[in-house]
């Protein structure tokens, strides 16, 4: 079964597999970027404020909304290919 003229060489299953892989990678990238950014924020904190005087670490950040990350990744893939 052919999908459309824009994907002439791919069957539906192949196209879906590619889509899921790209989605998976896009989601992973979001998490990787978040991990790097979190490290950067923490490094800036402990180089500006003496760490032994920090009163707490937990609950000091905005929680990323995972379904939103998934949704935005999907939109990005569909729009940008």
């Amino acid at each position, binding site marked *: 079964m052919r999908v459309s003229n824009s994907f002439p060489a791919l069957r539906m299953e192949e196209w879906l597999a590619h889509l899921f*892989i790209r989605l*998976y*990678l896009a989601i*992973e*990238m979001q*998490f*990787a*970027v*978040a*991990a*790097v*950014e*979190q*490290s*950067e924020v*923490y*490094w*800036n904190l*402990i*180089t*500006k*404020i*003496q*760490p*032994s005087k*920090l*009163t*707490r*670490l*937990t*609950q000091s*950040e905005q*929680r*990323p909304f995972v379904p939103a990350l998934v949704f935005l990744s999907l939109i990005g893939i569909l729009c940008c290919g």
Partner: protein
Amino acid sequence: MARWDDLLNDAFEKAFPEYLDDARLSNLTENEIKSAEGKRRWREFMMPFEKIVHDYNFGTLIRLNAEGEYDEQNAMFGTSNTPLGRGPLPVQSAGGHISRWAHQAQVSLGGNILTHFSLCSGYRTQFYAIEIARNRRGLNDKVWAANQKA
């Protein structure tokens, strides 16, 4: 105000008494955390915090040496690749040195830093436990002091 920090720190000291030794806590080895036994112990430590710590199992970079910064040698990464292979990854953030390092790491690792992040055994709860203990015992103060001189 620091109730969860206290809770985490107490549980950490009970679950990992070996890290009461400052030298051990300052210099972690990837193997002691990623070994089968290490994974089991950390899993048991983390599970009670599932509903308490936001993103308790979110992948997080952990510095192995408390006196070092986040760089390719000092941050704990997984080292295997996923079957999905390697591809380009623009790791972009506010333009700080960690982003630049991540970009370099991406190049030096042969392509895809994503796969390394995805297998990273550093979780947010581990990060909190280790860094709270380091901060409270003053093990991170050298980093701060070094950056005041610079």
